[in-house]
């Protein structure tokens, strides 16, 4: 295990990459940044279990692999279950045969986590395996070409929630993944942003130090899916936080702490206007959807602030 427990500045981030260059993810891919940072944050021997999705197809095309750690992909919806098997095998083989222990990190996109993989994730969280699950959330099924998921926000246009004249974008709101995770009474759950790498990486470190199941939900802008310039990935990730579109917080033993404070939020339009998936929301005829989106974001922020201030255990 490495001596450095937490990172204070970017200078302390190791230069060594366990997620190598030369993969096939898009220029400006937010998920690629999330993977690179996560692999720099590991504390020692680590195994990665990955759901089918962008990261999987773009990093493991035979005979190439971007992974300098053991990596396993089996299917789309079972990542948490595969990880359960590996963790328990490692634990029992350590006990029976003295094999070395390692950390297991399961990684899934929003489709593989919020939707099709939710049952396996719930089972794993309930059983209490020593698992870190990272969901990289680009807010739609991007690998199959931008279809709406349970993580797609209200009003966003995708290929299965198009900005039609009758139905302008996704009519439903985004699922609360951390709320679902916390309802399992797990010791640690957090959201994170690739625009705040120290916060994100320290959450991974912290999670790895905690025994039991942990969930980290990181927002990863997607160039073709959100439809913006590849140079704006970090800018958008930061605006998502600064506009309170994506609050960055942690829930440790049920207590909420907002780790990136946003005292003076920027108007959410600043985040929306850079992305063509929201273009129709800025038109006058869809003002009511924009209002509903904003209201939802405000309510969520206020809820988190109240929970933090009250210290109530959720």
């Amino acid at each position, binding site marked *: 295990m490495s001596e450095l427990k937490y990172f204070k500045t970017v200078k302390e981030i190791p230069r060594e990459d366990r997620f190598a260059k030369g993969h096939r993810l898009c220029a400006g891919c937010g998920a690629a940044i999330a993977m690179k940072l996560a692999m720099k944050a590991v504390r020692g*021997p*680590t*195994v990665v*279990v990955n759901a089918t999705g962008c990261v*999987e*197809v773009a990093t*493991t*095309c*035979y*005979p190439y*692999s971007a*992974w*300098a*750690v*053991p*990596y*396993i*992909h*089996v*299917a789309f*919806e*079972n990542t*948490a*279950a*595969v*990880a*359960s*098997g*590996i963790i*328990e*095998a*490692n*634990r*029992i*083989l350590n*006990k*029976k*045969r003295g*094999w*070395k222990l*390692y950390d297991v990190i399961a990684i899934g996109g929003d489709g593989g986590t919020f939707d099709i993989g939710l*049952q*396996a994730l*719930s*089972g794993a969280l*309930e*059983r209490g395996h020593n698992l870190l699950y990272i969901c990289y959330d680009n807010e739609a099924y991007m690998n199959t070409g931008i279809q709406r998921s349970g993580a797609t926000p209200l009003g966003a246009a995708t290929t299965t929630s198009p900005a039609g004249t009758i139905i302008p974008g996704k009519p439903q709101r985004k699922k609360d993944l951390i709320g679902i995770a916390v309802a399992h009474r797990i010791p640690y759950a957090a959201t994170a942003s690739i625009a705040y790498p120290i916060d994100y990486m320290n959450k991974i470190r912290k999670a790895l130090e905690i025994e039991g199941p942990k969930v980290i939900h990181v927002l990863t802008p997607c160039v073709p899916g959100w439809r913006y310039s590849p140079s704006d990935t970090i800018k958008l990730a930061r605006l998502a936080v600064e506009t309170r579109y994506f609050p960055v917080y942690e829930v440790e033993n049920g207590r909420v702490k907002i780790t990136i404070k946003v005292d003076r939020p920027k108007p959410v339009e600043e985040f929306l206007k850079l992305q063509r998936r929201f273009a129709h929301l800025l038109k006058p005829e869809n003002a009511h959807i924009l209002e509903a989106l904003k209201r939802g974001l405000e309510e969520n922020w206020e809820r988190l602030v109240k929970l933090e201030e009250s210290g109530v255990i959720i």
Partner: protein
Amino acid sequence: MTQVERLAFMGDEAVAYAVKQCNVDVIAAYPITPQTIIVERLSEYVANGELDAAFIPVESEHSAISACVGASLAGARVYTSTCSQGLALMHEILHAASSMRAPIGMTIANRSLNAPLNIHCEHSDVMNARDTGWVHLFANNVQQAYDLTFISFKVAEDPRVLLPVSVNIDAFVLSHSVEPITPITDEDAAKYLPPREYEYPINPDRPITYGTMALPDTYMEFKMQFKEALDRVPEVFEEAVKEYEKISGRRYWYYDSYEIEDADALVIVLGSTYGTVKTAAKKLRAEGLKVGVMGLTMFRPLPEKELVKVLRNMKAVVVMDRAYSYGGLGGPLYTDIIGVLYRNGIRIPAKNIVYGLGGRDFKLDEAEAILRMAEKGVREGGFETHVDWWGVRR
């Protein structure tokens, strides 16, 4: 070979006892009738410290098999059991388990598939998994359910194979019937199955990427290697059964048979029906009818060479299927057998009896009637129909 006391076991209990003696490392399983007793007994063994294993009480069969794949690639000896809807839910990962070359031991307590809902014996569940690249073995009685569990791990984990293996036991007929069995000793079990040796376990000191994507330029080569592993199963199976005979005194082969050496008419079955047909055949033999019975132990890979050796001496064959290939030519075993006959130039009449679906009883007098039908096929040089649904009301 050490003499041991005989024990009375339900089929499920006998399997659980064998799995304990196999010293498995990880069990991931989900309850479904009629295999649940296996899972219950294994939970007790782990809870009471009689078996040092991780028991993962998963939330679905899909997760059971997924956890098994992960645990197997991590180097553990891995077991699960299921049937029917549970096996159907696993289906996607059955392919991944075999193609990722993950040895897993699984008992399937063969049960019908919904709809209509029915929990009784039928082979449709495993027939759905026929083409997944698993090795599928069938037990005829509780002793075989016990013995084949050891043999299944021996074959699965052999470096020449590295494939998952299922042992099929008929729902209720075997899973819930109490029969006396003669177990092997714990010492012999440990000698037969020492802790698993695996060259490529998940290991941070030697990072390997498992389950890559393969494009059209490499996919077929992956699949060919996988097929070749299945082709090596017979040689490994033959070694495994020989070694098992040394410790148990019981000899296993690709099939069980009764009086096939000089038979003209053959009836081929899978599972517990073998005993019924064999008993009926004894009576007909006493009458001088030259009938023989074969109960296939290895269904996949299909032991074509061994089947040919038997079939080429026959004058007619009746294949009994406890499943049906809807829209196809008949039951799955029948279509296999007519394929074997045709491509080996054996021109004998072959008939298919589809029987016992949803656990419908199949009795001794019915077995006798089918043997007589086979014998009549010899005398008349053919059968009136290709496929009959046995005893069905219209």
